[in-house]
Protein backbone atom coordinates (compact mmCIF):
# COMPACT_ATOMS: atom_id res chain seq x y z
CA UNK A 1 0.00 0.00 0.00
CA UNK A 2 1.61 3.24 -1.08
CA UNK A 3 -1.12 5.38 0.44
CA UNK A 4 0.39 6.47 3.74
CA UNK A 5 -2.88 7.95 4.98
CA UNK A 6 -3.96 4.40 5.79
CA UNK A 7 -2.63 3.20 9.13
CA UNK A 8 -0.79 -0.14 9.07
CA UNK A 9 -1.49 -2.40 11.98
CA UNK A 10 -0.23 -5.85 12.98
CA UNK A 11 -3.12 -8.07 14.07
CA UNK A 12 -2.78 -11.41 15.84
CA UNK A 13 -5.49 -13.73 14.59
CA UNK A 14 -6.32 -16.78 16.69
CA UNK A 15 -8.24 -18.99 14.28
CA UNK A 16 -10.02 -22.19 15.29
CA UNK A 17 -9.01 -24.82 12.75
CA UNK A 18 -10.35 -28.28 12.08
CA UNK A 19 -9.35 -30.67 9.34
CA UNK A 20 -11.79 -33.60 9.27
CA UNK A 21 -9.18 -35.78 7.58
CA UNK A 22 -6.47 -35.44 10.22
CA UNK A 23 -7.82 -33.76 13.38
CA UNK A 24 -9.70 -35.41 16.24
CA UNK A 25 -10.86 -32.01 17.46
CA UNK A 26 -10.51 -28.33 16.49
CA UNK A 27 -7.53 -26.36 17.78
CA UNK A 28 -6.45 -22.73 17.59
CA UNK A 29 -3.73 -21.63 15.20
CA UNK A 30 -2.20 -18.18 15.56
CA UNK A 31 -1.22 -15.89 12.72
CA UNK A 32 0.38 -12.47 12.74
CA UNK A 33 -1.26 -10.57 9.89
CA UNK A 34 -0.13 -7.18 8.54
CA UNK A 35 -3.36 -5.21 8.22
CA UNK A 36 -4.70 -1.77 7.48
CA UNK A 37 -6.76 -0.31 10.30
CA UNK A 38 -9.62 0.48 7.89
CA UNK A 39 -9.96 -3.19 6.92
CA UNK A 40 -12.66 -5.49 8.15
CA UNK A 41 -11.93 -8.94 9.62
CA UNK A 42 -12.76 -10.54 6.26
CA UNK A 43 -9.98 -8.49 4.61
CA UNK A 44 -7.55 -9.80 7.23
CA UNK A 45 -8.68 -13.39 6.54
CA UNK A 46 -8.32 -12.86 2.79
CA UNK A 47 -4.79 -11.50 3.26
CA UNK A 48 -4.00 -14.46 5.48
CA UNK A 49 -5.28 -16.97 2.92
CA UNK A 50 -3.58 -15.27 -0.05
CA UNK A 51 -0.21 -14.72 1.60
CA UNK A 52 0.28 -16.81 4.72
CA UNK A 53 -1.79 -20.00 4.68
CA UNK A 54 -3.79 -21.05 1.61
CA UNK A 55 -5.23 -24.07 3.46
CA UNK A 56 -7.59 -21.98 5.62
CA UNK A 57 -11.25 -22.62 4.73
CA UNK A 58 -14.05 -20.07 5.26
CA UNK A 59 -17.10 -18.86 3.37
CA UNK A 60 -17.55 -15.44 1.87
CA UNK A 61 -18.95 -13.88 -1.25
CA UNK A 62 -20.17 -10.29 -1.44
CA UNK A 63 -18.00 -8.40 1.09
CA UNK A 64 -20.90 -5.95 1.58
CA UNK A 65 -23.30 -7.39 4.16
CA UNK A 66 -25.75 -8.72 1.62
CA UNK A 67 -24.95 -12.39 0.98
CA UNK A 68 -24.83 -13.56 4.59
CA UNK A 69 -22.01 -16.06 3.97
CA UNK A 70 -19.21 -14.84 6.24
CA UNK A 71 -20.88 -15.27 9.62
CA UNK A 72 -18.41 -16.37 12.32
CA UNK A 73 -17.69 -15.92 16.01
CA UNK A 74 -15.40 -12.90 16.38
CA UNK A 75 -14.12 -12.46 19.93
CA UNK A 76 -17.04 -14.59 21.09
CA UNK A 77 -19.76 -12.65 19.26
CA UNK A 78 -21.60 -13.85 16.15
CA UNK A 79 -20.63 -11.32 13.45
CA UNK A 80 -20.39 -10.94 9.71
CA UNK A 81 -16.65 -10.82 9.06
CA UNK A 82 -17.30 -8.15 6.41
CA UNK A 83 -19.10 -5.94 8.95
CA UNK A 84 -16.60 -6.37 11.80
CA UNK A 85 -14.17 -3.47 11.35
CA UNK A 86 -10.61 -3.90 12.66
CA UNK A 87 -10.70 -0.39 14.12
CA UNK A 88 -13.29 -1.65 16.63
CA UNK A 89 -11.08 -4.52 17.83
CA UNK A 90 -7.94 -4.95 19.95
CA UNK A 91 -4.73 -6.24 18.37
CA UNK A 92 -5.62 -9.86 19.13
CA UNK A 93 -8.78 -11.23 17.56
CA UNK A 94 -10.15 -14.73 18.15
CA UNK A 95 -12.08 -16.22 15.23
CA UNK A 96 -14.22 -19.36 15.49
CA UNK A 97 -16.92 -20.94 13.34
CA UNK A 98 -20.51 -19.98 14.21
CA UNK A 99 -21.64 -21.49 17.51
CA UNK A 100 -24.32 -24.20 17.57
CA UNK A 101 -23.48 -25.50 14.09
CA UNK A 102 -21.27 -28.55 13.39
CA UNK A 103 -17.86 -27.64 11.95
CA UNK A 104 -17.31 -28.91 8.41
CA UNK A 105 -13.74 -27.61 8.17
CA UNK A 106 -11.99 -24.63 9.81
CA UNK A 107 -14.51 -21.75 9.81
CA UNK A 108 -17.01 -23.51 7.53
CA UNK A 109 -20.07 -24.86 9.33
CA UNK A 110 -22.74 -27.36 8.26
CA UNK A 111 -25.88 -25.34 7.52
CA UNK A 112 -28.10 -28.27 6.45
CA UNK A 113 -30.28 -28.04 9.56
CA UNK A 114 -31.11 -24.38 8.97
CA UNK A 115 -31.79 -24.92 5.26
CA UNK A 116 -34.19 -27.79 6.06
CA UNK A 117 -36.04 -25.60 8.59
CA UNK A 118 -36.22 -22.74 6.13
CA UNK A 119 -37.93 -25.05 3.61
CA UNK A 120 -40.37 -26.30 6.25
CA UNK A 121 -41.80 -22.81 6.93
CA UNK A 122 -42.53 -22.12 3.23
CA UNK A 123 -40.85 -18.71 3.01
CA UNK A 124 -42.55 -17.58 -0.18
CA UNK A 125 -45.93 -16.14 -1.09
CA UNK A 126 -48.74 -18.67 -1.22
CA UNK A 127 -51.36 -16.51 -2.97
CA UNK A 128 -54.58 -16.10 -1.05
CA UNK A 129 -56.35 -15.30 -4.26
CA UNK A 130 -55.29 -17.40 -7.25
CA UNK A 131 -54.78 -15.33 -10.37
CA UNK A 132 -53.30 -15.78 -13.80
CA UNK A 133 -50.86 -13.19 -15.24
CA UNK A 134 -53.50 -11.71 -17.57
CA UNK A 135 -55.50 -10.66 -14.51
CA UNK A 136 -52.71 -8.28 -13.52
CA UNK A 137 -50.32 -7.99 -10.60
CA UNK A 138 -51.01 -8.44 -6.90
CA UNK A 139 -51.22 -4.90 -5.59
CA UNK A 140 -50.01 -3.72 -2.22
CA UNK A 141 -50.15 -0.34 -0.51
CA UNK A 142 -47.07 1.25 1.15
CA UNK A 143 -48.79 0.75 4.52
CA UNK A 144 -49.19 -2.98 3.85
CA UNK A 145 -45.53 -3.16 2.80
CA UNK A 146 -44.35 -1.46 5.99
CA UNK A 147 -46.02 -4.10 8.17
CA UNK A 148 -43.55 -6.82 7.11
CA UNK A 149 -40.66 -4.95 5.47
CA UNK A 150 -38.32 -5.21 8.47
CA UNK A 151 -38.67 -9.02 8.55
CA UNK A 152 -37.98 -9.22 4.80
CA UNK A 153 -34.46 -7.85 5.41
CA UNK A 154 -33.18 -11.27 6.60
CA UNK A 155 -30.14 -12.50 4.64
CA UNK A 156 -30.08 -16.02 6.18
CA UNK A 157 -26.66 -15.43 7.77
CA UNK A 158 -27.54 -17.61 10.78
CA UNK A 159 -25.95 -15.24 13.33
CA UNK A 160 -29.22 -15.42 15.29
CA UNK A 161 -28.93 -19.22 15.55
CA UNK A 162 -25.36 -18.86 16.84
CA UNK A 163 -26.61 -16.36 19.46
CA UNK A 164 -29.74 -18.26 20.52
CA UNK A 165 -29.04 -20.37 23.65
CA UNK A 166 -32.34 -22.15 23.13
CA UNK A 167 -31.22 -23.43 19.73
CA UNK A 168 -27.91 -24.53 21.24
CA UNK A 169 -29.69 -26.56 23.91
CA UNK A 170 -32.60 -27.79 21.80
CA UNK A 171 -31.53 -28.20 18.16
CA UNK A 172 -35.09 -29.15 17.15
CA UNK A 173 -36.10 -25.51 17.66
CA UNK A 174 -37.03 -24.08 14.25
CA UNK A 175 -35.26 -20.94 15.39
CA UNK A 176 -35.26 -17.16 14.94
CA UNK A 177 -34.64 -16.55 11.23
CA UNK A 178 -36.93 -19.27 9.83
CA UNK A 179 -39.83 -18.26 12.09
CA UNK A 180 -39.27 -14.56 11.32
CA UNK A 181 -39.47 -15.33 7.61
CA UNK A 182 -42.65 -17.37 8.14
CA UNK A 183 -44.07 -14.35 9.99
CA UNK A 184 -42.94 -12.03 7.19
CA UNK A 185 -45.12 -13.96 4.72
CA UNK A 186 -47.97 -14.51 7.19
CA UNK A 187 -48.48 -10.75 7.53
CA UNK A 188 -48.07 -10.02 3.82
CA UNK A 189 -51.40 -8.80 2.40
CA UNK A 190 -50.94 -10.90 -0.76
CA UNK A 191 -50.42 -14.15 1.13
CA UNK A 192 -52.92 -16.83 2.11
CA UNK A 193 -50.59 -19.51 3.46
CA UNK A 194 -50.71 -18.77 7.18
CA UNK A 195 -52.60 -21.93 8.15
CA UNK A 196 -49.96 -24.11 6.46
CA UNK A 197 -47.10 -22.28 8.19
CA UNK A 198 -48.80 -22.32 11.58
CA UNK A 199 -48.68 -26.14 11.40
CA UNK A 200 -44.90 -25.78 11.62
CA UNK A 201 -44.27 -22.69 13.72
CA UNK A 202 -47.13 -22.57 16.27
CA UNK A 203 -45.76 -25.73 17.88
CA UNK A 204 -43.38 -26.86 20.65
CA UNK A 205 -40.54 -26.94 18.13
CA UNK A 206 -41.65 -23.55 16.85
CA UNK A 207 -42.35 -20.36 18.80
CA UNK A 208 -43.13 -22.14 22.06
CA UNK A 209 -39.52 -23.26 22.36
CA UNK A 210 -38.54 -19.58 22.45
CA UNK A 211 -38.12 -18.13 25.95
CA UNK A 212 -37.45 -14.59 24.71
CA UNK A 213 -33.78 -14.26 25.63
CA UNK A 214 -33.61 -11.65 22.85
CA UNK A 215 -30.02 -12.48 21.82
CA UNK A 216 -31.11 -13.03 18.19
CA UNK A 217 -32.20 -9.41 17.83
CA UNK A 218 -29.05 -8.08 19.49
CA UNK A 219 -26.75 -9.77 16.97
CA UNK A 220 -28.84 -9.38 13.79
CA UNK A 221 -26.73 -7.40 11.27
CA UNK A 222 -29.81 -6.32 9.30
CA UNK A 223 -32.00 -5.14 12.24
CA UNK A 224 -34.66 -7.73 11.47
CA UNK A 225 -35.52 -8.12 15.19
CA UNK A 226 -36.38 -11.83 15.09
CA UNK A 227 -37.36 -11.75 18.79
CA UNK A 228 -40.17 -9.34 17.88
CA UNK A 229 -41.39 -11.64 15.10
CA UNK A 230 -41.49 -14.62 17.44
CA UNK A 231 -43.40 -12.75 20.16
CA UNK A 232 -45.90 -11.57 17.53
CA UNK A 233 -46.39 -15.16 16.34
CA UNK A 234 -46.94 -16.22 19.97
CA UNK A 235 -49.53 -13.48 20.52
CA UNK A 236 -51.39 -14.30 17.27
CA UNK A 237 -51.30 -18.04 18.02
CA UNK A 238 -52.73 -17.43 21.50
CA UNK A 239 -55.57 -15.42 19.98
CA UNK A 240 -56.16 -18.32 17.53
CA UNK A 241 -56.43 -20.74 20.47
CA UNK A 242 -58.98 -18.64 22.33
CA UNK A 243 -61.03 -18.08 19.20
CA UNK A 244 -61.01 -21.80 18.45
CA UNK A 245 -61.92 -22.95 21.97
CA UNK A 246 -64.25 -20.25 23.26
CA UNK A 247 -65.51 -18.34 20.24
CA UNK A 248 -65.62 -20.94 17.53
CA UNK A 249 -68.46 -19.09 15.82
CA UNK A 250 -66.05 -16.24 14.98
CA UNK A 251 -64.39 -16.76 11.63
CA UNK A 252 -60.67 -16.01 11.50
Amino acid at each position, binding site marked *: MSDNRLAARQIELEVLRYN*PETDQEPKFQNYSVPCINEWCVLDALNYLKDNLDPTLAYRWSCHMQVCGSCGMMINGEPKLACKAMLRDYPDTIRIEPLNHF*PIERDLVTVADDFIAKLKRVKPYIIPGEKRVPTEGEYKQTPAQLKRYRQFAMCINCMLCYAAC*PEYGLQPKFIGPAAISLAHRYNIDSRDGGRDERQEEIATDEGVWECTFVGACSEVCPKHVDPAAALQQVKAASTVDWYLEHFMSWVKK
Partner: protein
Amino acid sequence: MGEKMSRRPYVREVPPTTWYFRMPRYMRYMVREVTSIFIGIYTVIMLVGLMRLSEGPAQWQSFLDALKSPGSVTFQVLALLFALYNSFTWFNVAPKALPLQFGEDMAPDSVVAIGHYVVWVLLSIFILFWAGVF
Protein backbone atom coordinates in the same frame (compact mmCIF):
# COMPACT_ATOMS: atom_id res chain seq x y z
CA MET B 1 -13.68 -34.42 -8.65
CA GLY B 2 -13.91 -38.16 -8.28
CA GLU B 3 -11.94 -38.06 -5.03
CA LYS B 4 -13.75 -39.38 -2.00
CA MET B 5 -15.14 -36.56 0.13
CA SER B 6 -14.22 -37.09 3.75
CA ARG B 7 -16.91 -35.44 5.78
CA ARG B 8 -16.66 -35.71 9.52
CA PRO B 9 -18.45 -32.67 10.99
CA TYR B 10 -17.34 -31.80 14.51
CA VAL B 11 -20.12 -30.99 16.98
CA ARG B 12 -19.33 -28.64 19.87
CA GLU B 13 -21.53 -29.57 22.82
CA VAL B 14 -23.33 -26.81 24.72
CA PRO B 15 -22.88 -27.23 28.49
CA PRO B 16 -26.49 -27.94 29.63
CA THR B 17 -26.22 -26.44 33.13
CA THR B 18 -23.61 -23.69 32.75
CA TRP B 19 -24.47 -22.28 29.31
CA TYR B 20 -25.56 -18.91 30.71
CA PHE B 21 -22.01 -18.12 31.88
CA ARG B 22 -20.90 -18.06 28.25
CA MET B 23 -22.19 -14.55 27.48
CA PRO B 24 -23.18 -11.51 29.57
CA ARG B 25 -26.50 -11.28 27.73
CA TYR B 26 -27.33 -14.84 28.81
CA MET B 27 -26.54 -13.90 32.42
CA ARG B 28 -28.83 -10.87 32.14
CA TYR B 29 -31.60 -13.17 30.95
CA MET B 30 -31.05 -15.64 33.80
CA VAL B 31 -31.02 -12.85 36.42
CA ARG B 32 -34.40 -11.69 35.15
CA GLU B 33 -35.73 -15.26 35.26
CA VAL B 34 -34.53 -15.62 38.88
CA THR B 35 -36.39 -12.46 39.93
CA SER B 36 -39.66 -14.22 39.13
CA ILE B 37 -38.90 -16.85 41.82
CA PHE B 38 -39.08 -14.06 44.44
CA ILE B 39 -42.34 -12.81 42.93
CA GLY B 40 -43.67 -16.39 43.09
CA ILE B 41 -42.73 -16.74 46.78
CA TYR B 42 -44.39 -13.39 47.54
CA THR B 43 -47.58 -14.62 45.86
CA VAL B 44 -47.57 -17.71 48.10
CA ILE B 45 -47.20 -15.44 51.17
CA MET B 46 -50.24 -13.45 50.00
CA LEU B 47 -52.26 -16.69 49.68
CA VAL B 48 -51.20 -17.78 53.19
CA GLY B 49 -52.36 -14.33 54.40
CA LEU B 50 -55.80 -14.89 52.82
CA MET B 51 -56.00 -18.28 54.54
CA ARG B 52 -55.12 -16.75 57.93
CA LEU B 53 -57.72 -14.02 57.35
CA SER B 54 -60.40 -16.66 56.82
CA GLU B 55 -59.41 -18.35 60.08
CA GLY B 56 -60.23 -15.34 62.27
CA PRO B 57 -58.84 -12.08 63.75
CA ALA B 58 -56.23 -13.69 66.02
CA GLN B 59 -54.68 -15.71 63.18
CA TRP B 60 -54.72 -12.64 60.91
CA GLN B 61 -52.93 -10.59 63.60
CA SER B 62 -50.23 -13.25 64.05
CA PHE B 63 -49.74 -13.28 60.25
CA LEU B 64 -49.29 -9.48 60.27
CA ASP B 65 -46.81 -9.74 63.15
CA ALA B 66 -44.83 -12.38 61.28
CA LEU B 67 -44.60 -10.02 58.28
CA LYS B 68 -42.86 -7.44 60.50
CA SER B 69 -39.92 -9.66 61.46
CA PRO B 70 -36.55 -8.37 60.14
CA GLY B 71 -36.12 -11.40 57.87
CA SER B 72 -39.58 -10.91 56.41
CA VAL B 73 -39.04 -7.18 55.84
CA THR B 74 -35.71 -7.88 54.09
CA PHE B 75 -37.40 -10.42 51.84
CA GLN B 76 -40.25 -8.03 51.00
CA VAL B 77 -37.86 -5.21 50.09
CA LEU B 78 -35.90 -7.61 47.85
CA ALA B 79 -39.09 -8.95 46.29
CA LEU B 80 -40.29 -5.39 45.62
CA LEU B 81 -37.00 -4.43 43.93
CA PHE B 82 -37.04 -7.60 41.83
CA ALA B 83 -40.70 -7.08 40.91
CA LEU B 84 -39.89 -3.54 39.76
CA TYR B 85 -36.93 -4.79 37.72
CA ASN B 86 -39.05 -7.55 36.19
CA SER B 87 -41.87 -5.11 35.36
CA PHE B 88 -39.66 -2.40 33.87
CA THR B 89 -37.80 -4.87 31.66
CA TRP B 90 -41.12 -6.41 30.60
CA PHE B 91 -42.72 -3.08 29.70
CA ASN B 92 -39.63 -2.13 27.72
CA VAL B 93 -39.87 -5.23 25.50
CA ALA B 94 -43.68 -5.24 25.27
CA PRO B 95 -43.62 -3.17 22.03
CA LYS B 96 -41.95 -6.10 20.26
CA ALA B 97 -45.06 -8.21 20.70
CA LEU B 98 -47.47 -5.36 19.98
CA PRO B 99 -46.63 -3.54 16.76
CA LEU B 100 -48.99 -0.62 16.18
CA GLN B 101 -49.52 1.02 12.83
CA PHE B 102 -51.11 4.45 12.56
CA GLY B 103 -52.01 5.17 8.95
CA GLU B 104 -48.98 4.22 6.92
CA ASP B 105 -46.23 4.28 9.53
CA MET B 106 -45.44 1.90 12.34
CA ALA B 107 -45.71 3.63 15.72
CA PRO B 108 -42.42 4.04 17.62
CA ASP B 109 -41.82 1.46 20.38
CA SER B 110 -42.05 4.19 23.01
CA VAL B 111 -45.80 4.62 22.37
CA VAL B 112 -46.57 1.05 23.48
CA ALA B 113 -44.06 1.13 26.35
CA ILE B 114 -45.40 4.44 27.71
CA GLY B 115 -48.94 3.07 27.40
CA HIS B 116 -47.97 0.19 29.68
CA TYR B 117 -46.43 2.54 32.27
CA VAL B 118 -49.52 4.80 32.26
CA VAL B 119 -51.90 1.85 32.79
CA TRP B 120 -49.61 0.52 35.54
CA VAL B 121 -49.61 3.85 37.43
CA LEU B 122 -53.39 4.27 37.05
CA LEU B 123 -54.08 0.72 38.28
CA SER B 124 -51.70 1.20 41.22
CA ILE B 125 -53.44 4.44 42.24
CA PHE B 126 -56.83 2.74 41.92
CA ILE B 127 -55.78 -0.23 44.09
CA LEU B 128 -54.19 2.01 46.75
CA PHE B 129 -57.34 4.18 46.77
CA TRP B 130 -59.54 1.08 47.03
CA ALA B 131 -57.41 -0.23 49.90
CA GLY B 132 -58.03 3.05 51.74
CA VAL B 133 -54.47 4.40 51.64
CA PHE B 134 -55.61 7.89 50.55
